[in-house]
């Protein structure tokens, strides 16, 4: 403790591998020490693209949830939304780390999160829509968490890559809590005042055109998720309208105008200081 500067003093005597004060070191790799082998017969490029897309969904969702900080109707909801965002950010990190291992570039999570432009993202577009009011954000959370949970439960038992299967098995447990939280709120809002019901009905109408792209051609997944959503909307006295889907597909790189500004904010510090560690 020879230095007066508190940060420098704290940093003293810790080599890089300790990571306690110097983040950005090896211990920060969420897949630190995990066996990286890609099983034979698994297409690495496809696996990497899939991990990246699932990571993009979670990163963009987490960023939207973070925007509720200091703006949620009650402290408890703010804590809940932040916690859900943190879980999703954790899933993002694991998925990006896996993508970097298998796509042959060896890129770390930051390269994917901070140094790709909106056109390079492959998240579903529902995740990037602006937060709107609390009813919209909570209803979107219900749709996205129900879908992601169903998908992760399936990946946990069927993914050919054991790392992806493990990430999904872990994430599914978290997503079950997210879905439960959102479902209870949608019922409360739908079954609440005229105003809360109107807002939740508007939210469902705004979300409906973006639901189709969650399933692509996967009819089984669609049936499973829509059944859960119907369970909630029935209890809430509401209906998810059947409407024509918006053209294009987020997984193919089609974006709304809302992703670029979101990423600009998310990426500003990392791009201003590209080699910084913290």
């Amino acid at each position, binding site marked *: 403790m020879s230095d007066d500067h508190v940060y420098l003093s704290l940093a003293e005597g810790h080599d890089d591998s300790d*990571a306690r004060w110097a983040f950005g070191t090896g211990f920060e790799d969420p897949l630190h*020490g995990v066996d990286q082998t890609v099983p034979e017969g698994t297409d690495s490029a496809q696996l990497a693209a899939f991990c990246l897309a699932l990571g993009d969904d979670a990163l963009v969702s987490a960023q939207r949830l973070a925007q509720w900080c200091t703006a949620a109707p009650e402290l408890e909801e703010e804590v809940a939304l932040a916690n859900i965002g943190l879980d999703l950010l954790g899933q993002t990190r694991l998925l990006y780390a896996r993508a970097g291992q298998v796509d042959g570039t060896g890129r770390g999570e930051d390269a994917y999160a901070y140094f790709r432009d909106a056109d390079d993202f492959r998240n579903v577009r529902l995740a990037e829509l602006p937060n709107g009011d609390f009813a919209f954000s909570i209803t979107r959370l219900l749709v996205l968490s129900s879908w992601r949970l169903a998908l992760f439960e399936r990946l946990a038992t069927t993914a050919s890559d054991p790392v992806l299967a493990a990430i999904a098995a872990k994430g599914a447990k*978290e997503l079950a809590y997210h879905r439960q939280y959102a479902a209870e709120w949608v019922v409360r809002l739908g079954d609440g005042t005229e105003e809360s019901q109107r807002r939740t009905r508007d939210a469902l109408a705004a979300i409906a055109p973006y639901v189709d792209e969650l399933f692509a051609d996967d009819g089984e997944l669609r049936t499973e998720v829509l059944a859960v959503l119907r369970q909630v909307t029935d209890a809430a006295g509401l209906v998810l309208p059947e409407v024509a889907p918006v053209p294009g597909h987020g997984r193919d790189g089609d974006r709304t105008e809302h992703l670029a500004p979101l990423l600009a904010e998310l990426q500003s510090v990392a791009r201003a200081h590209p080699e910084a560690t913290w």
Partner: protein
Amino acid sequence: MVTALVSVDSRRAWRIAAQVPDPEMPMLTLADLGVLRGVEIGADGTVVASLTPTYSGCPAMAEMRAEVAARLRDAGFAKVEIRTVLDPPWSTDWITPEGRRNLSEHGIAPPGAAPSGPIKLTLSPTRRTVPCPRCGSADTEETSHFAATSCKALWRCRVCREPFEYVKEI
């Protein structure tokens, strides 16, 4: 003889790693929490400690890895390797009886049995009872699904009026 020494050493390495406290719930050791999955010594003397994260976004993971490695090195193990184990995923069922006692004694209600298999959505109010860790009353209610860390919910006791945290089953 060599085997016996290795086994004495690996037991000692386990004890050292096991005693590292959880950064967010320091009344629990990593062994109590069930995140320390194993400590082995390889043929070349490398100590390999396996850790599993509680939640995907647990910010304490880096700190845990660093602390386990640092304590093992301080104890004279020159080569230390930390491995992350993702499978099977961590469950609150792995919190030891000792860990549950320590949680209660610090005013945090320990988790019940974790659900297994695909999780069904239930919209009827769940009548889960979480006894108050302070007065033992079963007359308690949830105030928030989420609390200061991902792993806990907020509850309050209607009898002694105290709020308390509750480690959620996962």
